[in-house]
């Protein structure tokens, strides 16, 4: 079995053509890569949204703690 389009280097080199494996399946690689590309942008947006929500939450918590501290010192 050979994944390449040639099985030795002894013939006419100029007639080899494509040197990558699985010649003929290029369309599939293109579709997979487009799928990966779209997935990456969606995943990136999801990750970014999540990170921003965490930051937002941390800021709100901090603000709440400060308010509570302030109220506590006023009560005393």
């Amino acid at each position, binding site marked *: 079995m050979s994944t390449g389009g040639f099985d030795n280097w002894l013939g006419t080199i100029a007639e080899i*053509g494509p*040197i990558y494996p699985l010649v003929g399946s290029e369309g599939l690689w*293109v579709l997979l890569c487009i799928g990966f590309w779209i997935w990456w942008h969606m995943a990136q947006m999801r990750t970014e949204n999540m990170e921003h929500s965490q930051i*937002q939450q941390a800021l709100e918590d901090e603000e709440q703690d400060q308010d509570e501290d302030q109220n506590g010192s006023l009560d005393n």
Partner: protein
Amino acid sequence: MDQDITALTLLFTELYYWLSMFLMMFIPAGFCLYASAIVRHKNCNNAFLTQLMILPVLALPCFVFGWWIYFGFVNGPGAGGFESAPFAVAWHPLAGGFIGIDEFGRSRINGVSWLGFLLMSFTVAAIVAGSVLERIRSGALWMLVVLVGSVLWVIGAAWGWSPRGWMVELMGFHDAYAAGVVHTVAGGFALGVLKNLGPRLAKVSSNKSLYNIPPRSIHMASFGQILIILGLLGFYLASNQPIVDVQSGEGTFFSATNIYGTPVVLSASTLNFFMSLLAGMLVGYILSAGDLRWILSCGVAGIVSTSAGNDYYHPLQAFLLSAMVVWLVFRMRYWLESRFQIDDVTSAVAFHGFAGWFGLVIAGVVLWGYPASPHEGYAIINPLGQFVGATILFWVIGFIPGHLSSSFLKFMGVLRLNPDIEVIGMDTLRNNISRLESENNSDNELQILDDIKEEKD
């Protein structure tokens, strides 16, 4: 003998492009360093990351459709359809490694040419990314850079930076080192985005005037710009064909050519590159009263301002034209900021967009009457053709799509950072998390140390 010369020419060309790619790799390094140094400390790592990820984000779209757009779109809108370019079609055997005879003669240099193309795409995208730092969301920016880096500038290049582009053929458009298709398009696009994005919160005072926001590290920003300039030299090399028989009819005359196939003298255009850079720096020194922040920016603007015609200018012409345009765009930078409240962190609109635009128009006057192509039937270089071409690049290919796409992202609510996050800075919280983790680690270490001591006792 003929075969020997052909083989030698082929190998030399291959090596030449590899060398130029090596130099061009300094462009991403320079932009990452520059961006991280020009922002405030709280956004330093995020600015670096934003620039760094542009290259991987652009790789697939540039390979799958950007490369084909460059060859396929040369006929322009509604004229002549798409040109055939199988070596640029992602699923064609010529797009990968190919040993043999192909009718286009590109199989030996296709990959390395594409790499140059990708780095040019990066340059366009990084110019835009630099101008919007410190308040744009990374996800939105990376979508915008796909649009400008793998579609828009490529259309401009197909039209005006290609031997068979319709703007070259009909209008005599000339843009030897891509001042227009790279820098003018990037500047126009950045302006479109900046208009929707608005200034940084810290930039606007209560009376609506804009504050100056000092960069984190001016000397590191300058070092980043030195790397960018080194990369631009590689860009100049990659814009030429190194060895071509340019003699029509009988006889042979080997020469380097520009992208249009007309003969150029490499040493002269390299000299012009440096003359433009140095003139820009001299003017920048005077205008900024010796402020290091602006000197190399003005040097880059100087290169941009003469790149359209640096293949044929006299070195002193390049010097004087650069000085004139840099003086002009330096003033326009302030005008943009004060008149329109455009907060352009790296001054990309003025130093790339406007400098490129002026450079194109000036090339039309200075090179008036030069043949735009070695082929018969092409228009000559002329001021009107350059003016129309420059305007198409800035407004039609740059500004309008930039404005529309960023309007859409703004409408979707994903363009700009939440004000709370903008104020605290993207790095601050990430750093706090790292600090907490590091403190936890230290606590853990101390605990282990206590345990060891107890065991010993």
